[in-house]
């Protein structure tokens, strides 16, 4: 109603990394990733991510910073684990 999507604190959907820019530890040209988000491209910072992503990986983003990286294989594996959990219900 009054709240725009971008004002929400957490965006839960992993976003695909299209390009890596900048350098780790360089604050003038900070390490960041260009990600695909709801049809547009945005840049997110990589300062606090658990593992630097590569092109093709997925990241979970919070307030403009990536917080978690998932490779395609990891995404697939976690999906299988999830399906297993549901099947075991």
């Amino acid at each position, binding site marked *: *109603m*009054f*709240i*725009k999507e*971008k*004002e*929400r*604190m*957490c965006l*839960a*959907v*992993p*976003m*695909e990394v299209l390009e890596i820019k900048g350098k780790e530890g360089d*604050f*003038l040209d*900070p390490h960041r990733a260009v990600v*695909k988000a*709801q049809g547009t491209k945005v840049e997110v*910072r990589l*300062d*606090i*991510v*658990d593992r630097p992503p590569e092109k093709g990986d*997925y990241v*979970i983003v*919070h*307030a*403009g*910073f990536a*917080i*978690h990286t*998932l490779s395609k294989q*990891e*995404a697939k594996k*976690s*999906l299988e*684990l*999830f*399906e297993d*959990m*549901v099947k075991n*219900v």
Partner: protein
Amino acid sequence: MSNKTKPFQDKKHVDTLAKAIKALVSRPLKLMEVCGTHTMAIFRHGIRSLLPDGLELVSGPGCPVCVTSQDDLDRIMKLASVKEVVIATFGDLIRVPGSSGTLAQARAQGANVEIVYSPADALGLAKKMPQKQVVFLAVGFETTAPTVAATIMQAKAMDIENFSVYSCHKLMPPALDALFQDEDLGIDGLLCPGHVSSIIGSVAYEPLCKKYKMPCVIAGFEPVDILLGIYHLLLQIKDSSPQVVNAYQRAVPYNGNPNALSVMMQVFCEKDAIWRGLGKIEKSGLGIKDAFGHFDAGKRFPFSVLSRPEPKGCLCGDIIRARANPPDCPLFATKCTPVTPIGPCMVSSEGTCSAYYRYGRHENR
């Protein structure tokens, strides 16, 4: 991207889980979700309509704006009244009433208030406006604090003099500990926050689970995620075997995100903090370390405020402690609405009252 979320929204899975959940509820049970994004997702997906009578979901202190104390709000209003100050804030905070109005009202009267999506954008504002003092209002838990810490480190490295941060950051485990000490709480299980857990890891809930024999499940935000989380809580309750289960493995490693925690603790130190509804909790907040003291807006603008009571009749404090639901509040949907909010739970997009108003007003539960 839609195929990435499909299994988490699969109707077949939803039906299976809803049936399994019904079979596990044989007495009244109360589960708490402690993440504002969960509160919203539960309403948006209509999860309550899938649950059997006797299974109640209540919201905990997981909406960062809602737990911000009246004193902090009043200090923020004072900061906004300083002529050279530009307030940079997440959108949620601008309509929360302090004792003397909201930031939105202050802006209408000439104060400089800018909405930003990221703390890095606030630093960008400071670079663009060297003649102004940009103050970022830092609210949020373990997920947001590292993003602010990284921004403060950048400000220091780039020698940006006109940037500072007013830290209202809070830590989740100490608040849960304080909440669980209330013997009347009557919570049977805890749906742990998703992205706070990405940072602190599932390991962070083990002491709480052990101390209070509290079933804990970390869940994601899609319908199947949430139902799976509820199902695992009910299983633990049935077997009387409290443990920490991670049902959100695609985002939450056991040890969390050590890099983010390290960045956070380079800039911040634990301090006592006041939570709306819960009062003062030891070591439950984050203050800026002396090494970065130059960027501490609390030091740069050392205002004192008179402690004032929270708004009369407002039950936000009780709602945050799961002692009341929004419809129990005499102001809910009468004097207090999203257009004219009285308490913070009605303002924030993650607030329980706001979610009830938008989605749940016509439900009986």
